[in-house]
């Protein structure tokens, strides 16, 4: 086996498994669940850049889902802009807003950042509810055209669940690839340096403010992309998308999956999209259970599932030496 395959064997296998899901089941419901999981993977990877790498708690990340979704919805309904353009425009809008927000708040971090991001999301929610003419008020915007890519005659329409599945699959792959590259680059190492010891990092010439700003802009863009995808997939956006429970869901996925790892949000997002569906009977108990889970996750596995698994692998991995899988020693957990 060529080295590149052997080194990435696990990732390739998982990729193949998820790529073949539409061939394994005809039940559209499962495909829909995985599409939603993909949507959350994009958003939570973005949140991870801020919470996991910069080490600041953002409680306003759900606002970027909303900004992306509304930007996309307004552009495609009012101005008939094609999917690809509105998708990119949504990302740019989210990036700009996130830049201005970060520019104001990232100079003062810690508690200030938490509270300002929280009230920022509150404002965005208010705007969505109150400005009827722009956002459709509490009912939201409906009838968003579905997704399609192409020029003139050559159009690919994403009409079936399966096609949307492959669209989000591609987006997730691109996101994971980019996040992996970013966090293992100078950029990511600088950011981890800041998270671990800001004074030390500053003393060797790393500007905490600039790196934190860069990472939160990237986080904002990712969430806006997720929001834009959501708008075109569900074809309806309402202020619900940026309500507080949304950020709690994302935090749960991140904290339990493992912050500060690229794989953590993937595990978290898939777990917490699929598990709740099986707990339908106890739907009323979903949020109390989520609250308790959040508390116990921090108390019992403070780093999350992914680093815990990695710890097990370094402890017992030697039993699987015959597989010749190279395990990367990764010191990236917070």
């Amino acid at each position: 086996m060529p080295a590149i395959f052997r080194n990435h064997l696990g990732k390739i296998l998982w990729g193949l498994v998820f790529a073949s899901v539409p061939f394994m089941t005809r039940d559209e419901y499962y495909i829909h669940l995985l599409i939603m999981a993909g949507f959350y993977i994009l958003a939570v990877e973005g949140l991870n850049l801020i919470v996991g790498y910069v080490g600041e708690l953002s409680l306003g990340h759900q606002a970027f889902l909303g900004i992306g979704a509304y930007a996309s919805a307004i552009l495609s309904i009012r101005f008939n802009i094609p999917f690809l353009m509105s998708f990119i425009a949504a990302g740019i809008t989210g990036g700009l807003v996130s830049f201005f927000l970060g520019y104001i708040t990232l100079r003062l971090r810690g508690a200030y950042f938490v509270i300002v991001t929280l009230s920022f999301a509150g404002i965005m929610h208010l705007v969505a509810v109150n400005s009827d003419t722009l956002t459709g008020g509490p009912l939201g915007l409906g009838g968003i055209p579905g997704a399609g890519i192409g020029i003139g005659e050559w159009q690919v329409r994403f009409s079936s669940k399966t096609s949307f599945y492959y669209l989000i699959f591609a987006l997730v792959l691109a996101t994971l690839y980019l996040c992996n590259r970013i966090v293992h680059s100078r950029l990511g190492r600088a950011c981890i340096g800041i998270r671990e010891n800001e004074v030390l990092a500053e003393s060797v010439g790393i500007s905490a403010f600039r790196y934190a700003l860069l990472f939160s802009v990237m986080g904002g863009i990712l969430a806006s992309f997720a929001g834009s995808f959501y708008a075109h997939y569900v074809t309806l956006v309402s202020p619900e998308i940026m309500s507080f429970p949304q950020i709690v869901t994302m935090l749960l996925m991140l904290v339990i999956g493992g912050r500060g790892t690229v794989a953590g949000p993937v595990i978290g997002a898939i777990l917490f999209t699929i598990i709740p569906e099986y707990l339908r009977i106890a739907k009323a108990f979903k949020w109390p259970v989520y609250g308790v889970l959040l508390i116990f996750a921090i108390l019992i596995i403070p780093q999350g599932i992914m680093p815990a698994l990695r710890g097990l692998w370094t402890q017992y991995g030697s039993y699987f030496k015959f597989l010749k899988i190279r395990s990367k020693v990764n010191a990236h957990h917070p």
Partner: protein
Amino acid sequence: MIEFLQQFVNGLIIGMTYSLVAIGLTMTFGLMNVINFAHGEFYMLGGFIAYYVVALMNMGFYISALIAVLATMVGGLITERLLIRRLRGRDILTTAIVTIGLSMFLQNTGFIIMGPIPKSIPSPFEPVPIYIGQITVAPARLLAAAVSIIIISFTHLAYNYTKVGRALKATLQDRDAALLAGINTNTFNMWTFAYGSALAAVAGVLLGAMFVVTPFMGEAVIAKAWVVVIVGGLGNIMGAVLGGLLLGVAETLGAGFISAGYKDAIGFFIVILVLFFKPTGLWTKSTS
């Protein structure tokens, strides 16, 4: 002019209840470096328990208010002992996530118990407004103002002029030095947390008698209380009181004269302005 004065008085009264909620938050942050998102739920518990004591046990308003406040205080004690103390020394992110978890749990358990219909604590007063000059004040509001003024003055006096208060002040300023001077900071943390929860519960009862009680009432107030805490300076108790009054008045005037829909946005703009020009809080003397 009369309308302006009327709104101003209404704003002051609402602001006092914000102050009550914010005092606990700012003390918890100053002492333990914890962003307590469950604080809004102690506020909710105040109104919630008072409603159930009145409705189910047919007790009088004042008795049930007292029961609600004491019960919430016990809740605060338990929370500090079992949860917050375990997280000592962990970063803000960790404690914030845990208290968000607690808040979600309490809110939604409350929702399961109470259901979606907002409840109103039966008020002990006739719904006849009282005239002060040309300004009208509802009796429930007058009660809220009186209770708030008493509690805030009590806190102020106790904080500045008693031995316990001075020990608290010392712990806020320098925890290690306070430990060296023989102050039991663990006990302090616990009782401060409980006192803060009790004040939030008082606010919950007062507002519950003015408006309605819902399981989610804490969510709206906690965001405002944080605004107040930032405006007053993190950890600054009297700053929080003044911040509360400022926010209450600004909101009421804003809702009356600018836009009612964006009333809740006013706090955010105040925070942004404060962070821009004086991030240590409006009433903090510069320490340099």
